[in-house]
């Protein structure tokens, strides 16, 4: 079997070289015509646009730890595929089981940016509100989806070393300084598993969750006094991975989902036609596009607070398959997703997950600088330029100024700050909302509008 895979891989590689004569290019680079050059200009023999495949060694034993410092800084040597490869590598590496837990389950929580809680690894699921929209994703069983935010040691240590948890230090921090290479932050997305529910294709785990209660008349987590339910069986449905690799302090923002979450909108999707005639985990068959992704911020209510059931149910659909972008980008993601799934062992649950997309900068066109927002200048944004995770940014997919990672994770200043605290200047590290939220006393981070 393994030999067959290797043979297939070689065949694809060869065919890919042929096809690359016409189509190989970085997201924004002209195509190269010499096969030799193609090999030389990709960081990895498999990182070829049009034939984006994962290296065999990811699937032989442990997943190699990603080497963000070795990521080729020279964009001439980078392909679009390379970014998706490193995204997938992180995903597989982070979801690899180590000592009975997935690797990311040993990450620090976002509370670890404070010295007094620097070792916090209590992964309570404590987020239900979707970014910006104030809506909650209510699944087909009338339960809210949950999230939490995690960071790695590089991220945490750098923040602690620089005392960026201190608002005053943060306010005065050099606007041009960047997160160190290797910084990782994650946002997870979990569905509560119902008794008897078939979750055989999903990664499941047991987490404590913060329960909803009526906060000012609407179901929310009472952050002043959250009630905790212990050991709730949950299934992973989404994972954001933001990682700084060499030459990309803006972070590569990659997002993964469970295959069965939600359908993609069709080409020229008619708002009055259904997105899919099948039931999905977060979508009821034959729901029209206009009824999908309906923000429930104003309509949400408990069916029963005791059992935490809510209405209305959210019908989720993915507006931009692969997060959009160029044909090369879309092709690479599709190809790589297929390739990884083929190479993963048949019993790996990660075969049931896929990279939605990833977005980063074409550094030939621009680099991260303070006061940057893609809604003002999007020339350097490349990859999946309309990337959302359908379980995390469900309700902002159709808002043009909010429909990609950098829409919110950019380096603009912040004016909506607590009284008595200075407005925050534009800074490169404002891309991280963990720090912004801390500066803002835990309040929602507004995009500027």
């Amino acid at each position, binding site marked *: 079997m393994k030999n067959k895979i290797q043979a297939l891989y070689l065949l694809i590689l060869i065919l890919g070289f042929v096809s690359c004569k016409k189509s190989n290019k970085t997201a924004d680079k002209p195509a190269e015509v010499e096969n030799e050059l193609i090999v030389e200009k990709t960081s990895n023999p498999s990182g070829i646009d049009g034939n984006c495949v994962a290296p065999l060694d990811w699937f032989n034993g442990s997943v190699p730890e990603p080497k963000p410092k070795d990521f080729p800084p020279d964009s001439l040597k980078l392909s679009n595929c390379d970014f998706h490869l490193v995204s997938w590598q992180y995903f597989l590496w982070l979801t690899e089981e180590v000592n009975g837990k997935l690797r990311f389950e040993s990450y620090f929580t976002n509370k670890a940016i404070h010295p007094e809680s620097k070792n916090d690894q209590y992964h309570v699921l404590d987020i239900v509100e979707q970014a910006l929209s104030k809506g909650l994703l209510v699944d087909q069983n009338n339960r809210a989806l949950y999230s939490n935010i995690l960071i790695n040691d590089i991220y945490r240590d750098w923040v602690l070393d620089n005392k960026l948890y201190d608002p005053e230090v943060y306010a005065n921090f050099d606007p041009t300084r960047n997160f160190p290479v290797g910084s990782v932050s994650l946002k997870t997305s979990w569905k509560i598993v119902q008794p008897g529910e078939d979750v055989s294709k999903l990664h499941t785990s047991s987490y404590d969750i913060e329960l909803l209660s009526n906060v000012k008349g609407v179901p929310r987590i009472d952050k002043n006094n959250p009630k905790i339910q212990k050991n709730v069986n949950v299934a992973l449905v989404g994972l954001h991975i933001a990682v700084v690799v060499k030459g990309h302090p803006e972070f590569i923002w990659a997002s993964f989902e469970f295959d069965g979450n939600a359908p993609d909108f069709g080409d*020229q999707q008619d708002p009055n036609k259904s997105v899919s005639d099948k039931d999905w985990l977060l979508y009821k068959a034959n729901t029209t*596009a206009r009824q999908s992704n309906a923000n429930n911020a*104003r309509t949400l209510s408990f069916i029963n607070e005791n059992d935490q059931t809510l209405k209305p149910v959210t019908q989720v659909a993915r507006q931009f398959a692969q997060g959009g972008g160029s044909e090369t980008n879309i092709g690479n993601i599709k190809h790589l997703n297929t390739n990884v799934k083929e190479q993963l062992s048949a019993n790996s649950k990660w075969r049931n997950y896929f990279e939605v997309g990833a977005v980063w900068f074409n550094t030939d066109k621009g680099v991260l600088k303070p006061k940057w927002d893609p809604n003002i200048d999007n020339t350097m944004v490349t990859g999946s330029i309309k990337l959302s995770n359908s379980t995390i940014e469900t309700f902002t997919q*159709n808002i*043009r100024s909010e429909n990609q990672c950098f829409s919110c994770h950019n380096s603009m200043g912040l004016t*909506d700050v607590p009284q008595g605290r200075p407005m925050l200047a534009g800074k490169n590290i404002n891309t991280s909302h963990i720090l912004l939220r801390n500066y803002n006393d835990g309040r929602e981070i507004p995009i*500027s*509008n």
Partner: protein
Amino acid sequence: MGNTSLRIHPAIGMARVGNSPDYYLGPETMAASPQEGTEITGGLPIKKGTESTTINSSDLRDAQGQLKKQAARFKIFQYPNSEASVGYPAKGGDEVIIGSIVDNKKVVDIIWTVHLANKKANCWEIDEVANKGVKLYENGHFPPLRNLNFKSASSNPSDPTRLKKLVIDAGPRAIQASKGTIPVKFNSNTKANYYDINSGGIVEQPNYPIQFPASQGSSLNGSAPIDYLGEILTETNGRLLVLGGFGLACAFDNDGNYDPNQNLCKDVDNDNWLDDTSDGVVNAVLVFEDGTKHALEGSAWVVVTDPAYAPQTLNVVSLWDDVYNTWLEKFNLRPEVFSNGKYNVDYKPFFLDDVYPTLNAAHMQMWNTNLPSRAIDAHYRMMQLTENKPSIDIMQFIRNPDGSQDDKGAPLMPLSLGDSDKGFLSLSRQQYFFMQQWNNGLSPGATPIQLGEGEQLDKTILVNCLGGRFSPGIDMTFIARDPNLYNQDWKNPSIGTFRINAKGLDYSQVNVNTPFLGIGYIPLRPDQVEPGDLCKFMSIPWHTDYNSCATHTPAPNPGGTVNKENLYSGDVNTTLFWSWPAQRPVAVYTFEDLMANTSNNGALPEQRFSLRGKGTAAVENLTPPGCPVSGDFDMKAMNVGRYQNRRDFLTEWVNVGTIIQGPAIDDYPEGFDKKYYLEVASNFKEDDSNEVVFWPNVVDDEVYPPKA
């Protein structure tokens, strides 16, 4: 005249229609500006018969519940003839009233002559499809003419039939202040009269061709014959008050006969319709104790437009900003600010006058729009900034008016819809410049320019009007930026600044069968301005534009016009933005709702749409009666907050509430926030519209019934 020059202020006065015969006076303080000695900010109208006492909520309607008109008040000021009085600002300026001394002579009376007309139906279209504004007049071109299908008339706007049948011309009316307690009406029952310089008195002109076309018939479904454009009266001290019409719209057929069954299928350019807004020239004559008289050389202008439903909400870009920009850049008004084609990088803007109003205006939008709390908080924070260099670069959030960012929405401000051919609104160039200078730390130590009372009035009146989005806007349109509109002889101390380039009108030479008014002013051409020339570019009738201007997607849209195929492409902007919310409130907090739950410690209630009577519940793909089926893409959320059938608003505009500050509301609870601006005096007893959902809203949003 001797040692003194005389001018009428404001240079351009604003009257507003109402269905009541009663009135209050237009505001003489700037919207939202702090006022000494009171918590009530500027912009509130003034009680009639008072100098400056601002109205309360009970003053907005008469005893029958009808919406009062807003009168434009004109005053005369005298300036010493000196070097100082020929610049801007002119130094000094004392008001002249009956009893004042001018050049050692006592004023015993003032004679005013005003001429009102409405030329909308014989004007060129704003051209909603082209959406190019004044560019349509460039290089000798014109947009299409309105009422091209009108009876046997050519497409030439000077065609006598068109001038007669499509122009409302009430002619001139004069009033002598000493006898001014009886209003003089601009209607079809009274004769034209005017001050005749030769005879030295008011003379009647029975042959003046007063024109009230299509004025025979009965009112039906919002169409009513128009035979009245307003009236003039005077205060006992001699000041002039101009009142406008009753807010009527009138339909006529292609033969020029009243026909209430005409359709109303467009937002701006509706053929076969008239309305009773108007504009025209204002002249004055002083009568002295010795029997001599002095006719003021310069004139003022009055414009009658829609009601002010949110008088204290400052526009982010006001009409003043556009007029001022034109005068700075075209008339060398203040060379220390702008000269030789560029702004002076050393100029120190005075924060409170040049910068703060823009920041404050952004904050004030919360009272008329469905801004989310995060935006409200951010605006509030900006409004609290001082003259000191801001701690962060504010300009990162401000759209550059150089045109490079016209299609960029959030995070750039202002976040409302733009001018013709511009997706989003930009500050006027001097607003942006002043803000840059302040942002660079140049405001501390700056000194304000000292406007005299009269020149301040010129500014105040325009500050309280809509600028920026002239497609076409509601008070005045893009002509405000055309130097040809103005009298360029502004250094003549008897003329002064911001004066309309009025055409001299000889009322002694009239023919009862020949229209007196011609084409008049044409944008980008030197033709002088006749009565009716300012309002003629506005929507006909104004109601349809007002009704429509709630929220829309940007136009032009960076991804092309929204349609069924590209709706989810991500390339088109499907987010809905406000048109001109300071002038046309979209979502409001009502005083009634606040009081319905006083146990809530005075917390703001949920919002409602300002327009919420029967027929406002959003539907999609509605074809108004008699109108062609539109192929335009349409979804419910694109239609919230307005009457679905334009025609309904012709009768419903009188029921719209007005937003005023808490302390100006009768029975406002003592402990409640005095900085609330709440809707009062709405006649909508039931809310039949939709629930207000905070921004951002997109075209495919579901819409919900209004809250109980």
